[in-house]
């Protein structure tokens, strides 16, 4: 943010003890300072970003690809929940719903994966969602060949945390009854 040598954004620069420019600060999702940027070469910046994202992101831990999710799901004997998102508001609302505390227990019954939809993305093409403008959730059986071709469930569009919980509970119940 532009501080214009102390004339702008003084509330935040004061809060985070900014005494010179540039200064880079990591905070948690509540705005509490976690660390200053330790080193400025690109590899170190990326490493520190990844470390902070790993340790301090709330909500489910997502894997980044179908192959990773399937391998983990086989190991854990859980279904895969694969979330495809876009940069649009519906996706943001859905991502916010996944962070809701009320979903914490039920989401532990799934191996979670997430990917942002891009036209040339390999997984988006495998799931035929590469041109989707809405978020899409797939529930997959990791034990079958090409689970992307026979999803157990597919939901398109935003959902509230309450709706997600209801749908996931219904899905798990149907799985138990089989």
């Amino acid at each position, binding site marked *: *943010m*532009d*501080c*214009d*040598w102390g004339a702008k*954004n003084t509330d*935040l*620069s004061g809060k*985070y003890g*900014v005494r010179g*420019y*540039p*200064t*880079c*600060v*990591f*905070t*948690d*999702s*509540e*705005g509490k300072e*976690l660390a200053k940027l330790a080193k*400025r070469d*690109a590899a170190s*910046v*990326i490493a520190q*970003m*990844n470390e*902070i*994202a*790993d340790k*301090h*992101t*709330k*909500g489910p831990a997502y894997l*980044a690809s179908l192959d990773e999710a399937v391998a983990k799901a086989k190991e854990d004997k859980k279904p895969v929940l694969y979330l495809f998102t876009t940069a649009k508001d519906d996706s*943001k609302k859905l*991502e*916010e719903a996944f*962070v809701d505390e009320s979903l914490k227990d039920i989401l532990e019954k799934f191996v979670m994966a997430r990917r*942002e939809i891009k036209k040339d993305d390999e997984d988006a093409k495998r799931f035929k969602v590469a041109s989707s403008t809405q978020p899409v959730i797939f529930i997959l059986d990791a034990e079958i060949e090409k689970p992307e071709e026979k999803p157990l469930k597919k939901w398109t569009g935003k959902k509230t945390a309450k709706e997600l919980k209801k749908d996931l509970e219904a899905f798990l119940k149907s799985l138990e009854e089989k």
Partner: protein
Amino acid sequence: MLKSLLAAVTVVSMAGAAAAQDGGKLPWKKDPQAALAEARKTGKPTFMFFTSEG
């Protein structure tokens, strides 16, 4: 690379770091309060870049 950025805050995620690694642009937000509000809602940490144009 970061010195040329004047925009304020990015919400840190693996995707953000991956974008940087690939030479892509970080999704900087120009409004720090809006970025902090988004961080609260999505449960993600933030990366704040304080600079001066002067």
